[in-house]
């Protein structure tokens, strides 16, 4: 029974609201003990999918299995999953301790058992001193941790997190990202995390499902998603990239030779389904490109520096290729000595690491 190894199996899940389809035939498997992220812009269906797993939305078509058990027809209170809500949804009339104890008590524990479990959880999120307070007397970050403790206290098989960090300021958000990651390792519970923030997804996840317009665009590790985006949407949504229109001139030994506007030529990986003569998109990460004052090899592209932008850790250089498109090149601030910074107006050559340019399907 191989599928029982998976925490969650979503098969051909469809969600319709009247004539609008929020989720179109999505299938994905989430492994046991995994930090899994559903990533996409707002309206992409990620929260709908999460709410279908929690039981707040019914499944129009398809099935959801949890460790092999079919759950899509169970009401939310009979599913061994717990949710950290975007708005936290802490019970305003209960103090912190009773909020955290609520789920444990509902599962059948006595009040004293539930409270002692709740105290343990509050210790885990370092809020023991706040157990007698009402949620309204806590800061946003503290409320967020209470919500986390409350969802973890009943020991769910899967923890669902619906953009839990979106209301926090940047510094706190960064700290919580690490804390969540550690908490996931410590508890060994499968986490399903929903976010629209690609950086957050890359930082925390074991695997990421990128979604758009109700469809799964790509599923893979952060590295796979970042370095080998499958299509234009993923390449554009994750990180910063040079998205260029090219025409495939020739395919030789698994390499595609592509031509940019202005006659510049690039070597890329071959992609199934893209033949000679087709006009396609190509993604080139700015940090995998470097500039030099002399051509390094025959593939170097000639251009002129138009601007340098200092962004702290990096310097972004905008290069206009001769009669061609604009290129963004990123140089780490610490490399400026070895690689050199070229003043605007300098004639330069753009070089790239082998395999850096990736052809994309639309």
């Amino acid at each position: 029974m191989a599928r029982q190894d998976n925490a969650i199996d979503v098969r051909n899940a469809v969600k319709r609201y009247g004539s609008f389809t929020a989720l179109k035939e999505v299938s994905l498997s989430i492994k046991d003990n995994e930090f899994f992220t559903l990533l996409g812009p707002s309206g992409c269906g990620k929260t709908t999918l999460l709410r279908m797993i929690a039981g707040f939305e019914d499944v129009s078509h398809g099935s959801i299995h949890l460790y092999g058990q079919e759950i899509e027809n169970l009401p939310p209170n009979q599913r061994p999953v717990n949710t950290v809500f975007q708005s936290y949804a802490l019970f305003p009339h209960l103090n912190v301790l009773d909020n955290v104890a609520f789920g444990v008590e509902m599962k059948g524990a006595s009040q004293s058992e539930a409270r002692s479990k709740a105290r343990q959880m509050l210790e885990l999120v370092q809020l023991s001193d706040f157990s007698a307070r009402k949620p309204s007397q806590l800061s946003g970050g503290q409320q967020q941790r209470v919500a986390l403790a409350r969802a973890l206290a009943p020991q769910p098989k899967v923890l669902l997190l619906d953009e839990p960090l979106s209301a926090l300021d940047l510094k706190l958000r960064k700290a919580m990202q690490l804390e969540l990651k550690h908490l996931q390792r410590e508890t060994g519970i499968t986490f399903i995390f929903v976010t629209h923030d690609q950086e957050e997804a890359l930082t925390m996840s074991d695997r990421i499902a990128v979604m758009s317009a109700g469809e799964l665009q790509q599923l893979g590790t952060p590295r796979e998603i970042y370095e080998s985006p499958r299509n234009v949407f993923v390449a554009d949504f994750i990180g910063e990239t040079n998205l260029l229109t090219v025409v495939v001139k020739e395919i030789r030994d698994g390499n595609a030779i592509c031509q940019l506007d202005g006659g510049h030529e690039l070597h890329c990986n071959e992609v199934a389904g893209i033949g000679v003569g087709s006009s396609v998109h190509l993604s080139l990460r700015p940090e995998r490109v470097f500039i030099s004052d002399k051509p390094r090899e025959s593939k170097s592209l000639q251009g002129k520096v138009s601007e340098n932008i200092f962004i702290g850790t990096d310097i972004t250089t905008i290069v206009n290729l001769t009669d061609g498109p604009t290129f963004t090149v990123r140089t780490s601030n610490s490399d400026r000595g070895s690689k050199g910074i070229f003043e605007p107006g300098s004639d330069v050559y753009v070089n790239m690491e082998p395999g850096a340019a990736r052809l994309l399907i639309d």
Partner: protein
Amino acid sequence: MAAGAPGGGSTVANTYEKARTWLLLPSWLVLLGLSLIPVIMMLVYSFLTKEFRGGVIWEFSLAAYDQFFFDRGLFGDEPPSIEWTYITIFWRSFWQAGTATLLSLAIGFPTAYFIATRPAGSRAIWVFLITIPYWVNLLIRTVSMKFLLRDQGPLNQVLMSLGLIDSPLHMVNTNFAVQLGLFYSYLPFMVLPIYAAVERYDFSLSEAAADLYASRWVTLRRVLLPAVKPGIIAGCILVFVPSLGSFLAPDLLGGAKNYMIGSLIEEQFKGNAGNWPFGAAASMILLTIVLIILLLFARQQTRHERKEA
């Protein structure tokens, strides 16, 4: 002009301070003229001597209160014993008003919940529908209710033609009829505050409770009800207090056996048979009891909250 800025700010504050006093004046005058002064007049009248054709003689007397609580025989010369007549009427009034309040809550809460959970655009229409019957005068509505409940009235005829009963049910001149009348008169006062509270309720709290293994019933009892409690309390007060002093429903639907405080007080000020000081005293006693109940309730509430914190 470094020093000018804070000075300018406080001038603005002073302007508002003055404006506030003037703007609040009409409210204060209305409250004073229509609420406080009448109560004081009533308090004074309750300690005066009655004039036989209505009105008062300006002479201090405790007779009104004495008449309410003590029985001194037909000629007033026997040793005093407790007078149960009026206490019974009071007790009955509280009972009737309490039942009507519970009935309003039982019907009003689901109604309010239903309206508050409709799509935002249609809520106003539902609220409007609730208030439509109340555009008709209360007297006409109460008389109509009596007509509906009569032995030969439409309700009995329908029940009999359906074969549910063999002979007409006697509903007019019963406690039930009064409770129904009160319930019907004041239902919107229950629905509207609860509706306002449920509309403000964050339904993700119900989702959170369900997510944490609570059944629907437990979610209602332990999450929704505590959150909308202020609305329920407001609704109960708004139905209970006017029901207690109501005289139309008890008069028209209850008959002589189901006499309530409102009717007792009304009679004291009607025609030549009345007794103004006694009516005023009964009103003061009613006012005092209601105030004590509300104060006890408020105190228990703050004590509960303090304990929670």
